[in-house]
């Protein structure tokens, strides 16, 4: 068995020629959603299934995941926390603000928060960053996975409010939430165009790749905001 840290806090574990993605378990002994726990050299890791996580898929598809152990992250569309739990593992000295607007889903997320000291749950609509502006400070990174028609706009608005100048946006775009019939390629192109010049903050897209075979019709992208330094 070999363990290799491919990004900060993200590991590639190889057992008998089969490799898997994993994070280091912040709360050893606890599995969050039935994922496998693996111990090597007294460190416990949690397997991270890329089929259940856009961020996991991005890591496997060689995106440069811009997270550090002590980053602060704004996570939009936290759902019941499958991926948030891994982000919480990665940010062992940081903090993740997990925004989710479905009360039913939030119920599960809160149970996760009760176990983990670095997740701050926020029941709010990510379309209304004002409603959590009195809680959330500037963050080092934003991750968004909301599967909504106005995904790009939501990401832009939140970046404007909360993203540190040097911070990066990680975004998963689901084409079927935007249009069920149009070709995903066309939709992705349009969404990227919007991010580059459609809103009052503009982005430079650093990396973009479709997330298949883990997630069909999803585009992953990492971008940073253009800082207006022409004063």
């Amino acid at each position: 068995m070999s363990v290799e840290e491919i990004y900060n806090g993200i590991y590639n574990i190889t057992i008998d020629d089969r490799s898997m993605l994993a994070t280091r378990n912040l709360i050893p002994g606890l599995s969050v959603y039935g994922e496998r726990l693996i111990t090597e050299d007294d460190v416990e890791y949690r397997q991270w299934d890329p089929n259940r996580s856009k961020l996991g898929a991005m890591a496997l598809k060689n995106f440069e995941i811009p997270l550090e152990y002590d980053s602060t992250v704004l996570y939009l569309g936290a759902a019941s926390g499958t991926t948030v739990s891994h982000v919480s593992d990665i940010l062992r000295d940081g903090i993740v603000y997990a925004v989710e607007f479905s009360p039913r889903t939030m119920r599960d997320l809160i149970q996760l928060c009760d176990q983990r000291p670095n997740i701050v749950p926020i029941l709010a609509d990510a379309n209304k960053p004002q409603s959590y502006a009195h809680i959330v400070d500037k963050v080092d990174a934003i991750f968004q996975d909301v599967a909504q028609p106005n995904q790009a706009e939501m990401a832009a608005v939140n970046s404007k409010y909360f993203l540190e100048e040097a911070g990066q946006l990680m975004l998963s775009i689901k084409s079927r939430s935007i249009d069920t019939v149009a070709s995903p390629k066309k939709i992705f192109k349009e969404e990227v165009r919007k991010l580059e010049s459609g809103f009052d903050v503009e982005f430079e897209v650093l990396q973009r790749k479709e997330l298949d075979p883990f997630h069909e019709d999803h585009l992953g992208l990492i971008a940073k905001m253009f800082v207006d330094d022409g004063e």
Partner: protein
Amino acid sequence: MEFTAWFGKLNINEEGEVEDCQAFEKDPEKLAEVLVSLQETSRDEAVNAPDLRQVALDFGFVELDKDYDIMLRDVCIRAAKMQISKSDTDDTRIIQAVEAMDDIDRNVNELSERLMVWYGRYFPELPLKGESLANFVAQYGSRESLPEDHKFFEKAANSMGSDISFADEELLRHLASNICSLYDTRSHIEAYIVTNMGSVAPNLSNIAGAPLGARLISMAGSLEKLAAFPSSTIQVIGASRALFKHLRDRAPSPKHGIIFNNIIIKNAPWWQRGKLARAFAAKISLAARMDCYSGELDPSIKENLDKKLEMIRKANPSAPKKEKKGGKSGKGGRSGRSGKPGGSNKKDGNRRSNNKKKGGKQ
């Protein structure tokens, strides 16, 4: 400018510096209450928030970075819990409401029946029943109290009913007014269901309408159970009576449960109904799952349903020609508004296999 952070009110000057901070009491439960109300009242205007953590440290709300995180997390968890218990997505109250409505219906029918028989002895010519009879009796009592301009005045004057005693009149009016208030309660419950289905099952309400959606939840036993049913089961929910009849009397097996009551299906020509009901049940099942697992309204389910229904209508404009006339065609009487006549009859032969492809292009 004033800005309220989760830990206190800040005064911010023109330069964007925080001049003053009135911290709230450092009690997590109270802070959580403040937070919930802040979230509810937040307006749409853009705010330029200062570095909250730094302010909290500068003004001594917390001493260490770490304390800030611990406190904020604690407060946010409490606030989220408060919001969840407030939002009350609990489906049991919908079931209670539906069942209460059924109880009322049963009782009100029985009592109305009683009122009709009893009051009929005194005014047999009165052509009213149900709620309007109850209203009438509660208002007038004896037929002799009708004003001259009342539309039943003539009938009352020439009635062959027996005379009513004062005691009977009092009693009947009392009974009638109780029936009226039951009807009233019923319509309250109906309105309650419509409003509350919006938060309990927004997608189901959007697809099926709140009353039908509520009934489906109630018959399934819970939203979760409804969400777990395959759509073929959803299609026959509520058909048990027809099912017994089928088993006992060899009546045709039930094809449709209560979803058949939906206006879309009810008003469709008979040969489309089965297909429409199937499409409808499939989307109801999807909607119930959405409501159960995410709780968020997804308008695309309805859009897709509408598209699908339209496709079915277009692909089946007229009654299929059958070799022998089955008993079914008798039911076709109500189907006045079948598709445009002469639409695509010539394609009848292989219409079935072509349904899908054709629908999209038409």
